[in-house]
């Protein structure tokens, strides 16, 4: 067993608990800076007022150690488990779930998960289960990213099974249409994650993963970077503005993740993220 590292899953539980709390109290620096920059460029006085409130809100949440938003989200995880790690002391997924339970309890976070969605809609009372996407990767580390995904913006997301003949023109229009229809509902300024390719399941995961990039970062592939810039310009020309009250800052960023698809398909998913883009990553 040379080269295999043991990791007690209780360390995972502790790390997940911390991530749930800090993700909800501390707005990431990149988003904070983007909101402040938008305050300078926004043309609408009401829009500037709203952006100022969002900056002040982030300051209050961080200082008082309270949630940025009362919707503290469904807890979504992306876990990369090194193939040279041997997990001991319990079940991997149960360890993450327990971390969510403790984080949402001890951190005074809102429990926003309902079971039997079509009928009873009973609150599970501890914000579990978690959504966990796991991949096995080379190495002997475990890297876990936690997102607190609010419901209002998630509801405005879309899945589009397009025809290949529609091309980029049809696809880009479908992205813009999704944001246009959403209007004020997802708490703009939004961040837009676009998944392109794969299958119906994978394209939505790509869209969600796209949201993990830092606002202000440029895609390493200039072709994709150009697509992102075009979409951002078109979305900000819609006039929706901060909170939908009119303005020039509708989105802070558009991020694309793509992969090959079937010759008959052209899947595209838009995952809409509100300005309270909360996520944390830990490596164990």
């Amino acid at each position, binding site marked *: 067993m040379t080269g295999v590292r043991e990791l007690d899953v209780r360390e995972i539980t502790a790390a997940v608990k911390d991530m749930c709390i800090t993700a909800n109290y501390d707005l990431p620096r990149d988003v904070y800076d983007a909101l402040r920059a938008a305050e300078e460029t926004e043309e609408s006085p009401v829009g500037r007022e709203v952006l100022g409130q969002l900056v002040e809100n982030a300051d209050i949440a961080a200082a008082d*150690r309270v949630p940025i938003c009362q919707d503290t989200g469904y807890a979504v995880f992306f876990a990369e488990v090194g193939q040279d790690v041997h997990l001991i002391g319990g079940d991997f997924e149960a360890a993450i779930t327990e971390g969510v339970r403790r984080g949402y309890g001890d951190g005074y976070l809102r429990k926003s998960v309902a079971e039997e969605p079509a009928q009873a809609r009973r609150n599970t009372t501890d914000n579990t289960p978690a959504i966990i996407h796991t991949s096995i990767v080379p190495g002997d580390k475990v890297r876990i990213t936690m997102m607190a995904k609010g419901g209002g913006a998630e509801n405005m997301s879309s899945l589009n099974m397009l025809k290949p003949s529609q091309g980029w023109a049809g696809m880009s229009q479908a992205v813009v249409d999704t944001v246009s229809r959403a209007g004020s509902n997802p708490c703009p300024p939004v961040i837009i994650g676009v998944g392109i390719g794969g299958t119906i399941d994978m394209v939505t995961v790509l869209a969600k993963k796209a949201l993990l990039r830092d606002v202000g970062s440029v895609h390493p592939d200039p072709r994709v970077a150009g697509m992102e810039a075009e979409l951002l310009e078109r979305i900000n020309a819609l006039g929706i503005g901060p909170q939908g009250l009119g303005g020039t800052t509708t989105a802070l960023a558009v991020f694309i993740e793509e992969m090959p698809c079937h010759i008959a398909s052209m899947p595209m998913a838009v995952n809409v993220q509100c300005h309270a883009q909360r996520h944390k990553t830990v490596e164990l």
Partner: protein
Amino acid sequence: MAVKKITTPLTDEVVKGLRAGDAVEITGVVYQARDSAHKRLVALIEAGDELPFELKGAVVYYMGPSPAKPGNVIGSAGPTTSGRMDAYAPLLMKHGLKGMIGKGLRTAEVKQAMIDETAVYFAATGGAGALLAKRIVGNEVIAYPELGAEAVARLEVKDFPAIVVNDCYGGDLYEEGRKEYAKPV
């Protein structure tokens, strides 16, 4: 921006003085109610039963807070998406509801009911729950505690900031604001 100070309960005169785009600060009592609470309130009205609070002149706040930390009046307390309450709002307005605080688009039926019943829809800043909680100075759950964050609470607010989106004349800031800043690409 000039701010209009208003107090609750709202009268027709106050509602008639508000126009889409006005910035307001609300002081007085507002009632916290969201999805499940609305379902129950409407069931009570339809059954002819008494409501847990007086609807005449009332303002509801579409909101479900995070739990309050010890010593705090309330947890984070920003608006939720109002559209989910559209199915219930016209009936509540018919029975005296004068104001709604939330965020996001309303249906044509709800906007028409605001004209017919002289009512108003305010947007508070979504995702500013920590800031808005500072303007809530009293908080008492008055119905459905078993619903947790979805319970009905009597909230005392002081200078609570909001913007008039839909007025009783058919004005709609979401439409007008968007038109003003849309650009050709």
